């Protein structure tokens, strides 16, 4: 008994570790709404998003010691989530996702199209925006090829910095910026195409 009994120092260390673990889990759970919101738009269905978030938290709680305190926990959780998403076979879909983008319109295209449909001259921006329904936005985003969509979801929906998005997706910052630029244009093109004439 005396050989294996923990010393006071061991007990202290264990107690400290237990406290750190509880703190970690609480902080991670506090971020779950934000993690889910991003996850929901990275994948196609609510069920998939729920599975993915649950697996993410299972893995995060198992490997909590790998997290460096003081760094961005939300980005760390999203990194786990995107890796799990890739493991689920999404990478296999990469090839057909390279849609030709030569039909891509400029940044004013959506506004010009919506404005032209309104009867009044020089309408207010809010009037123009009202032409878009919530459902049409959800559909237009879902139709953006996923390499581009991932970046839009992280930066524009999840409000991650370019640097965080680059780390989460394991791609260079320059690629984040170019995909974001193009992805937003594709999104706007999809929105314009989805508006009833």
């Amino acid at each position, binding site marked *: 008994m005396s050989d294996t009994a923990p010393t006071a120092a061991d007990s202290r260390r264990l107690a400290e570790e237990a406290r750190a673990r*509880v703190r970690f*889990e609480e902080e991670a759970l506090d971020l779950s709404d934000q993690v*889910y*919101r991003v996850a929901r738009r990275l994948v196609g269905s609510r069920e998939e998003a729920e599975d993915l978030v649950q697996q993410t938290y299972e893995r995060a709680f198992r490997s909590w010691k790998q997290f460096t305190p003081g760094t961005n926990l939300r980005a760390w959780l999203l990194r786990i989530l995107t890796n799990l998403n890739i493991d689920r076979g999404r990478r296999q879909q990469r090839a057909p996702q390279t849609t030709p983008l030569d039909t891509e319109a400029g940044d*004013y295209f959506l506004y010009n199209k919506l404005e032209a449909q309104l009867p009044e001259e020089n309408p207010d*921006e809010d009037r123009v925006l009202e032409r878009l329904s919530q459902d049409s*936005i959800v559909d237009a985003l879902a139709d953006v090829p996923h390499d581009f969509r991932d970046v839009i979801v992280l930066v524009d929906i999840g*409000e991650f910095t370019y640097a965080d998005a680059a780390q989460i997706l394991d791609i260079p910052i320059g690629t984040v910026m170019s995909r974001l630029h193009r992805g937003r244009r594709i*999104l706007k093109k999809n929105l314009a195409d989805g508006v009833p004439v």
Partner: protein
Amino acid sequence: MIDWCDKCEELMQPYLDGSLSDAEVEEAQHHLELCSWCAKRFRFEERLRHYVRVAVSEPMSAELKAKLSALRTPLDA
């Protein structure tokens, strides 16, 4: 001759992202003060971004929230 409206269309995204150089910001702002046509499209883009964020936000279900909480390590472990 530079077409400033075309140039502003190119600068819009990085302008709203805050990733332009000071000189480019100044160029864009100068044009936006003179051109209400571009200024309107910039305001629209800003609102659109916000609107998209709100429109695609779907809250997590209470069931999932409970499931995640249940994953926590029991306190006496």
